[in-house]
């Protein structure tokens, strides 16, 4: 009797597809990251740089200012972005395309151009200032203040909130809202009991994405702010490029990274096991059974 032999399975080499991207990420992100973390402990190694962060009187002020404006930017983009994303799911294909373009234009323009536009809008006696003056308001200053920086950051961050939100909301079966109303809910209750919980995945993604990006904002505060109200990224840059104090810069960077990761981890444990990017990339969000 002849034994039929199965064709031998070729070794699975598809993991090789990962190599180029992983190599790039390792080379330009993780190696420098680890290097700067290692340097932050100084030579001989100590926790001195970290202790200084809390005691130098400036780092913590800047850190709290950055955290505060990141939180404000994150919440305001959510409040602005949610209705916008919702309307995008309801609009006709043409209007949706238009709304999408409006969101994406900031992506297509250079960050510099965008921030200079804000500079012109917000400067003393610029258009915004004059509108306020027209209404007799003279004591609100936008130029070189945290308020102005936060406003500009909100605009820049809006797409990062709208896109994951839209992708999550578009995946929600609208029949569920009708079903809820058919079962006795007012439209408002149907929204809060059915639509809102199902959109949480997108909300969490948007929050995490905007928050992490806001924590590291550099150009906007550098152009629109002033040295008196700089943000953490400027502080890091200053220590690294002007003071050449790589240990201090590394310690600060590592500290911000850890705080951000802890907050993101907390957010993720709230929204299930979803990372910020999962919804942006993957539209396989809850969809009823439709």
């Amino acid at each position, binding site marked *: 009797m002849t034994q039929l032999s199965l064709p031998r399975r070729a070794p699975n080499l598809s993991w090789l597809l990962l190599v180029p991207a992983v190599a790039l990420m390792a080379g330009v992100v993780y190696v420098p990251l680890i290097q700067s973390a290692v340097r932050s402990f100084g030579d001989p190694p100590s926790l001195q740089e970290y202790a200084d962060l809390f005691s130098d009187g400036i780092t913590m002020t800047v850190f709290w200012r950055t955290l505060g404006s990141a939180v404000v930017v994150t919440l305001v983009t959510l409040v602005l972005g949610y209705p916008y994303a919702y309307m995008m799911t309801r609009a006709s294909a043409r209007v949706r395309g238009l709304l999408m373009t409006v969101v994406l234009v900031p992506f297509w323009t250079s960050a510099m151009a965008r921030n200079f536009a804000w500079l012109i809008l917000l400067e003393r006696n610029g258009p915004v200032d004059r509108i306020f003056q027209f209404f007799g308001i003279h004591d609100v200053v936008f130029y070189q203040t945290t308020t102005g920086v936060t406003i500009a950051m909100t605009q820049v961050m809006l797409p990062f909130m709208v896109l994951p939100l839209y992708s999550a909301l578009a995946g929600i079966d609208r029949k569920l809202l009708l079903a*809820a109303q*058919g*079962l*006795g809910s007012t*439209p408002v209750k149907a929204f809060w009991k059915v639509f809102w919980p*199902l959109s949480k995945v997108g909300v969490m993604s948007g929050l995490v994405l905007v928050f992490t990006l806001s924590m590291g904002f550099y150009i906007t505060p550098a152009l629109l702010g002033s040295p008196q109200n700089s943000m953490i990224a400027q502080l890091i840059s200053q220590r690294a490029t002007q003071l050449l104090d790589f240990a201090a810069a590394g310690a600060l960077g590592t500290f911000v990274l850890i705080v951000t990761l802890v907050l993101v981890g907390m957010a993720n444990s709230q929204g299930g096991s979803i990372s910020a990017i999962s919804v942006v990339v993957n539209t396989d969000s809850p969809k009823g*059974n439709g």
Partner: protein
Amino acid sequence: MTQLSQSNSETFAAASLAAKSGTEVRLEGVTKDFGLAKPAVDDITLRIEPGEFMTLLGPSGSGKTTTLNLIAGFEVLTKGQVLLNGQDVGALPPHKRNLGMLFQNYALFPHMSVYDNVAYPLRERKTAKDEIQRRVGEVLELVQLVGRDKHLPKQLSGGQQQRVALARAIVFNPKVLLLDEPLGALDRNLRGALQLEIRRIHREVGSTFVFVTHDQDEAMNLSDRIALFNEGEIEQVGAPEELYARPETLFTAKFLGDSNVFHLGKVSPIDNAVAWEDERWAVDANTVSPKVASDRGSALVVRPEGVSVSKNRSEVPPDANAVKATILDIEYLGSYRTLVLALGDARLNGRARIDAQSSDFSLGEEVVAWWRPYRQRLVAE
């Protein structure tokens, strides 16, 4: 014998329960115009009895779902009235109409457990907690889903999800249950089982059921009456047997079951004979549809089971209507077989159902197809 009388009394009890607890649904000149060439629902008038199982049957796009949505309040009427027990509900939003609704894709809330899904309408009605527990338990038993209450919808099979949706739709004792192709997504075996279950639940809860389907067999199996939809209008309303045996239009005859169809052009409804090619056929007055009119085309239809086949004219009874035919194919179906025929000079497609024992025919054979006049219907085109 005891069994028979028992099942009889059960049906009777169910019927009387139904009469007590269902709501009458009346549609008066109901119209919905989406601005297309023809209104999606075009001046429909229909009275659905309390406790009745009414099926809206029709091809896709004929306006069934729109009609259901108008009853539920998900769409706003262009014209006409929807009355529940005589009360005009046109101005009420869906959540105030107190109707149960079952969607084709179940529309279960994916973030809620089976229990929370089924409890949802009760919580919206501020039912007490222990009452909710009792009702949900009861209704999960009714749909045979005991022990699944902690599962999420996506952990259940399609059939089980449909049962959850059904449980959720009936848990608050709605007086009317609207079902939009609820079995459409299920495979054939499961559909059969769930049809039986829906029938049983209808008997047990006694609400008025308005059931939408495009599947004629499903409609025939389930319904007390069928309203047949065609392009936003109701073509005919009646019990399944009635629609099958006494179609008024060609559309009805063709939609429900197979028919041999002879197009006649304009004929007068009072003639006692019609001509087709060189045949002359007798017409019984009581087989003429009330919709036949001399200014409108008519057709003569005969079901395959009404048609007999003989080898030559001399074997055809003198009072039968006959047409020459050629045998194209023979389908064996156990207890009977179906002859696929080409009828007359026009070689129209036709079918005759004959006994498995009857004399042998061969493919291509020239024969005579015939039927008694009472087996035919003269219908409007």
